[in-house]
């Protein structure tokens, strides 16, 4: 029997598992640890990449190392490792890095190869879902307020916005702040509504605003006058 080299190695396998008395392929896939593994979501740390059509991870040993790859994303990344689990971990890291690298690029900034990779990602991963479900992380400056509560419950941001929070949403540093303490915070917000999810990190800072009205004017007026050298601007004929 002559077997021809497929012109496109990445095309879908032509033969799928068929059901039959003799065929134990389906059973073998379930008992092998290196067989296909379906993913409905690629998770890496806090990033979740949803795959509407599940992708299948394959593991292959080439005599030296294990490779981990998905047919839909084989042009994006192939993981390598001494064991299938290390190859899978490597694949996750490579995919995450490649996704994040291409995610911030505009289409016209991409090379043809990057463009192909991004198209493969778009066909396998719901990028819109990623965009609307991944929290925004912003650096903000605000003032901790107590009002009538015995612990902090409100933040007045430097632009005047006031936002309520519970102590579950903030780090311990904020719980220990005195009223009126200014902090520089890294804040996670919902991407669509901008609602506060939590404050990830906060650091106390001195007040960035003048303490009393008039202090700023006094500071301005009290500033030393600059003594610049005087020059004359003369016109000269050519």
């Amino acid at each position, binding site marked *: *029997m002559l077997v021809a*080299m*497929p012109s496109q190695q990445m095309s879908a396998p032509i033969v799928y598992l068929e059901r039959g008395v003799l065929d*134990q392929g389906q059973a073998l896939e379930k008992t092998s640890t*290196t067989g296909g593994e379906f993913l409905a979501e690629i998770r890496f740390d806090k990033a979740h990449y949803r795959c509407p059509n599940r992708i299948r991870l394959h593991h292959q*040993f080439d005599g030296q190392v294990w490779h981990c*790859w998905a047919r839909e994303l084989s042009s994006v990344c*192939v993981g390598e490792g001494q*064991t299938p689990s290390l190859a899978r971990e490597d694949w996750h890291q490579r995919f995450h890095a490649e996704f994040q690298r291409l995610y911030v690029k505009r289409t016209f900034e991409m090379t043809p*190869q990057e463009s192909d990779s991004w198209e493969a990602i778009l066909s396998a991963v719901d990028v819109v879902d990623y965009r609307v479900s991944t929290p925004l992380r912003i650096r903000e400056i605000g003032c901790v307020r107590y009002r009538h509560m015995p612990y902090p419950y409100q933040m007045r941001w430097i632009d005047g916005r006031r936002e309520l929070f519970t102590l579950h949403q903030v780090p311990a540093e904020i719980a220990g702040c005195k009223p009126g303490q200014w902090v520089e915070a890294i804040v996670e917000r919902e991407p669509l509504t901008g609602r506060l999810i939590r404050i990830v990190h906060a650091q106390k800072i001195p007040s960035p605003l003048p303490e009393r009205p008039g202090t700023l004017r006094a500071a301005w007026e009290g500033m030393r006058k600059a003594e610049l050298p005087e020059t004359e601007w003369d016109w000269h004929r050519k």
Partner: protein
Amino acid sequence: MVCPGMVLGTLAGSAPLKLGNPPVVEAWVEFRFALSEEIPPWDEALAESFFDRAFEGRYRLDGYRAATEVVLESTGGRPSIKDAKLILDRVRAIRTDTEDRYLQLGRGVLICNLIRTRQPWPDFPVLRDEALDACLKYSQFFKPKKLLAVAINYRDVVTIPWGGEGQVDIKDYVTLYPEVPPAMFGRVGDFRLSCSFETAAKNGLLTLSMRSERQPVRAGQDSFATGLRIRMDWNVTSTELETMDTEVIGGWMMEAYKDLLRVFRSAFTETGWNLFAPEKEA
């Protein structure tokens, strides 16, 4: 399937042989048990307590496979999820020191997997002894009524180099292949073949599933496709041992393995066999 350093002696019909480039990528032994009715509900905590008690930290949970049962109800003509629960099928644990061995545990199922790494591939008795040890621990923990089935599985991946015109005549390498008349169908792109054989192992059935296998192609690296890869899954199963005596089970496994070796050697022509770099021993 054959490990480096393993002697094939009488199988080759001449001098003993060792393989320098064995095609095996994974081997596993599977046990299925009939459980008694007293066992606690099957869940992850039960699996974890089995691994903790039987293997004392040598294996850690690595993953699980489960189905989700969803109860829908119709409210105002629209379906909504009333209840959803996870039904655990199987738990997988990886050996912590070497990371080349897995144990899979399900309700009435125990599977011992060994995967290929750069380390020398251990001889079959190593896998057999580890599997029997795990089987013994399973029976002490779960106290099954009897053994329903035992199976030995080997997965080989053979890479056949492409010929001059990007094609290969598979007949030159293997003795088992699907016969597809080229005049009617042209050249074959992918294939899959399954056959069962009688085996010398008592009450056993030997099955070979053979298929062409695709490989990853990295962007801009066409040369990654080095040849036609054929995956061969070998399976010998017995459903009639019906004993928990590990000596009987181990004896059957050895018998089955020897027969597997015989069929394995017969599946390749001399050219195919030479792909595995057989070395003649002095």
